[in-house]
């Protein structure tokens, strides 16, 4: 088992009177890639910002492994925040200076693929170009912890693939711990080793990838299913009904004739979010 790189205890955060994070306890292991999903406003981005030190929690504690210096924590926010008036070259020089990176060590290979003009201002980049540019900056830090907040969902497939390749390369090379917030999972494949799902500032699902697929199943049928099967989300269509079952265990519904189907990552997240909205409607 890997050692814990981040330990969180009793983390709470509120904006005004609204609770954003509600007494969270969890830990993140070194070298693991964790995906955090959830409905909009669940508290995912705020959680990541707390880890990045951009937000201070109202209560609780975030304990980082003492061996991780601040320079080795990299964060890309959903807004892809940078000093926009800098040119790309100035941004690189600034980042390298502040994060103690030798300018020569800066890897321009990603940027070269986009053929970016180094004298143009950051604010003139497209969203995709900006994501790649910022990712290049973070790679130069050789981060031990990488915090990514929804950066790939609105960029084109080519750049998305480029970024994911770079991310995988980074994990392979540096054994970086990645915590990412995302809404798009199709390209993720088997990358996340653990999935956390948030709802109302709490983790309602926390499983490793292997366990996750074994614990969530789907039943597709035309009829109602028995009450003793734990359903987190029900999708009704005129022709059939989909029941997402969690937690699923071997032998569940024995004799009922239900077929428990596997659910992919997108389906898992969708079921939790759908369940959340369904509860809200009630």
């Amino acid at each position, binding site marked *: 088992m890997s050692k814990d790189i981040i330990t969180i205890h009793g983390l709470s955060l509120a*904006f*005004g009177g609204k609770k954003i994070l509600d007494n969270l306890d969890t830990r993140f292991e070194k070298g693991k890639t964790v995906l955090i999903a959830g409905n909009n406003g669940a508290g995912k981005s705020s959680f990541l910002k707390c880890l990045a030190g951009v937000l201070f929690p109202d209560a609780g504690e975030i304990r980082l492994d003492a061996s991780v210096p601040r320079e080795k924590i990299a964060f890309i926010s959903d807004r892809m925040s940078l*000093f926009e008036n800098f040119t790309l070259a100035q941004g690189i020089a*600034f980042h390298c200076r*502040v994060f103690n990176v030798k300018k020569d060590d800066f890897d321009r290979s990603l940027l070269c693929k986009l053929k970016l003009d180094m004298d143009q201002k950051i*604010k003139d980049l497209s969203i995709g170009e900006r994501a790649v540019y910022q990712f290049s900056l973070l790679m130069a830090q050789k981060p031990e912890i990488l915090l990514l907040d929804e950066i790939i969902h609105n960029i084109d497939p080519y750049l998305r693939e480029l970024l994911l390749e770079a991310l995988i390369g980074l994990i392979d090379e540096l054994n970086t711990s990645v915590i990412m917030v995302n809404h798009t999972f199709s390209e993720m494949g088997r990358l996340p080793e653990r999935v956390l799902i948030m709802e109302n500032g709490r983790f309602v699902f926390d499983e490793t990838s292997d366990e996750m697929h074994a614990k969530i199943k789907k039943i597709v049928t035309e009829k109602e299913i028995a009450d003793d099967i734990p359903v987190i989300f029900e999708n009704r269509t005129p022709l059939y009904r989909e029941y997402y079952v969690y937690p699923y265990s071997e032998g569940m519904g024995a004799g009922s004739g239900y077929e428990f189907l596997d659910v992919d990552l997108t389906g898992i997240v969708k079921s939790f979010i759908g369940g959340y909205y369904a509860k809200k409607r009630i």
Partner: protein
Amino acid sequence: MLKKEFKEVSKQSLFFVVFVIGIPVLVSMLSMLFKWSLTYNEIFFPVYQVGMFIFAVVTGLTLFSAERRQGGMEYLLTLPLSRMRLLGIKVLPRVVALGVFSILFWLLLHLYSLSSGKGVESLLILPTHYIAYLALWIFIISVSFSAFHDNIILLALGILLIFGAYSLLMNNLQTLVWQVFGKYLDMNFLLFAVLSISGFLIPFAVPFVLAFRKFDLHPAGRFNRKYLKIFVPIFIICLFISAFFVYSGVAYGYDYKLYYLASNHKLIEFDWKTTYIYDRDTRTELPSGDVYPWMCFNKCDCGGWLYLKTRSGYDQQYIRLNIADNSVETLYTLKGPSFYRVWDYWFFKDRLVFFEGSYSGDNLMLVVVNVETKAAIKINLPAPLQEKYRTMQVVGAVEDNGTRSWLVFAEKASKGPLYRVWEDGSSRDLGLKGRSPHYINGILISLEKEGMVFSRLTAAGCEVIKIDPNGKAVKIGQFYRMDLDNARQKEVFGLRYGEEKVLMKIDLENLEVTKVKEFRERPIYLSHQECIVLEGYPNAGKLYRILGNGQIELMRTFSGFNAQEKGNYFHHCVNGIVTRENGKVSVYAFPKMEELPFKKLN
């Protein structure tokens, strides 16, 4: 990061430079158009100081505005810098800029004063250290507001409000203490050092620094709540501390009283509101308005009269007090607020002379009042004497074949034209050679690079009789200028510039300058008729008198008495010394320094 901040501040500085150069150019052009007779520098320096305050507000409030504007706040807060370091990096370049602009202001002002000789006060500006202090004060409050809100205009108005409240408190507290306690306080120290630092700067700076330790992307409301949570108790504590200091100051303060010993050994006491005359056994209240007592220090009573300037509302009056029967006569009244700012006045036998003009210094006239008949002659002065920013002085009175003329010096950095002005309105430029002129016993004395220049008045102007190189840079005691009736003076004394411990004698018969004595410390007082030297001031040490023959006589040794300690007082006038030590007033009369008893004094 620091480099980025310096760049940011440089941009703001550029705006400042454009502002302080551009506005005066604009106003100068308007001035030419509308004939306001304002020079570029008259506009430049006030605009510079206003610009400094604006710069302090803007640069303080925009601590994070560049990042906010560029959407870079999250990036900024993820940089590997602690909040305190971040604050330091943000504040340092701004403080450096304020420092540089303050130094530049001082330098420009200094160069301007040197080149033009124009007085600093005449440009309606504050002293440089005061501007720097206020700018820093405003900057700290602005910084402390920088995280409050995004609207700079709203915040700037808030700062203006605080500054106004502070000024109001400052002014009223001084009056209040004076009115309630009737005591004089060193209010400048108290107000600026204590009130502004403890009462204002600490409550603004400390909560900001403490709240900034957890500065993040929360809405400003959370930061504000944290800030106010700390601000309120600190403000209350600091207010109590300030009040305690003010109270201590009051307890430690002393009655605002000044004394003058008249030639008939009556003691005049001024306490701003009232003037008392002490005889041996009695005390009489003088029925006059507010008296400006400090004029008395420069002038002696003359012919049994003590000449004073008083104020009643906007009106000012020249009065004279009969020191024998305590009666008061009004000699001349300056009506309304539009009087010239020259406070000084001179007298010669039965004439009192002073300058009168509009408040701005235009239409300057020399007023000669016959103190017996109260008749006043107003003499228009020639154009070279009307030039602005000159300090007007009457340095001599000349009686020649029954006509009287006055030597009027329009000083600008010790230099300027010297005119002989007759009472019929005619005048003549004397073509003064040298600077700092004195007219004593018929001799015009001035200073040149070569030495002290002795001249004699002629029908055409004046002619140099002798130049004594020993007199180079010898500053004659200022009090010789006050009483213009100085025909009896055979010698006067002065101190040498630069080494002002050396007492020099100027022999007016042989026109020679000789060294008398080098004192251990700088002599402070040079009296009107005799030269009196106090060695060891402020620990009022030895009091010497320079006798007519150049001999020095030790008159008294004051041991262990510090005249500068609060409440203590050491004052000389031509007739004696008045001291106050721990509240007890003692009066010593010249020449024997015998102590005079006044029953109702202590």
